[in-house]
């Protein structure tokens, strides 16, 4: 995937666990894990909005474009 989600980096910066974040943004632990491990195919604006709200960051802080993974 050319788009990388740096969720783990941001979570470590904010010192928040997977369980706590999933509870705060209202998605399951399993789904947040899919996002964290870059297994997701797409992300809803509502999820991105909730992530940015809880992690107090911009979408650009979480999302990154990489040339290496390009198909």
């Amino acid at each position, binding site marked *: 995937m050319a788009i990388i989600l740096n969720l783990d980096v941001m979570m470590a910066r904010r010192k928040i666990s997977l369980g706590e974040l999933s509870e705060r943004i209202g998605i399951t632990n399993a789904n947040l894990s*899919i996002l964290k491990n870059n297994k*997701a*195919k*797409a992300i*809803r604006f509502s999820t991105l909005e909730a992530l940015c709200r809880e992690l107090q960051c911009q979408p650009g802080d979480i999302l990154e474009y990489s040339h290496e993974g390009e198909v």
Partner: protein
Amino acid sequence: MRYTGKNSLSTFIKILILLSGLFGIVIMLSLPWSLPWLMKLFYENSTGGLYTFFMIILYILGLSTLVILNELRIIFLSLEKSDPFVHRNVVALKRISALCAVNCLVFLVKIFVANSLMTVIALFVFFIAMLFSLILGEVFKRAVEYKEDNDLTI
């Protein structure tokens, strides 16, 4: 009436398919004894060659139909679990289509050797079933892709 899930119409059809399969196995096993009796009933002036021919085509048709029933059972099993959009069902439908084509060919050969109205009808039915399952397999493939996309959209 419930169509999918436990104790639904899918469960009933799954059991029906299982019973049909068992009945088919019994018929196939009894062929060496039942075929001469049936041939006497329908083809009074039959030859030994025709007996061998019937034996071969009935075993081919029987085996392929048993596999078709098993694939249908797998599809209805997934319906019972309320999760029909899986890759295994696409494979099952493709296999059903291929086996219907085999049955079509067998009936086509039978038309030239020992034709009857039922042979033409069976050929037509398997031809339609072949096309139907081929298209349905492709539709299922799309559905599985959409489901995977939906499941991985967080």
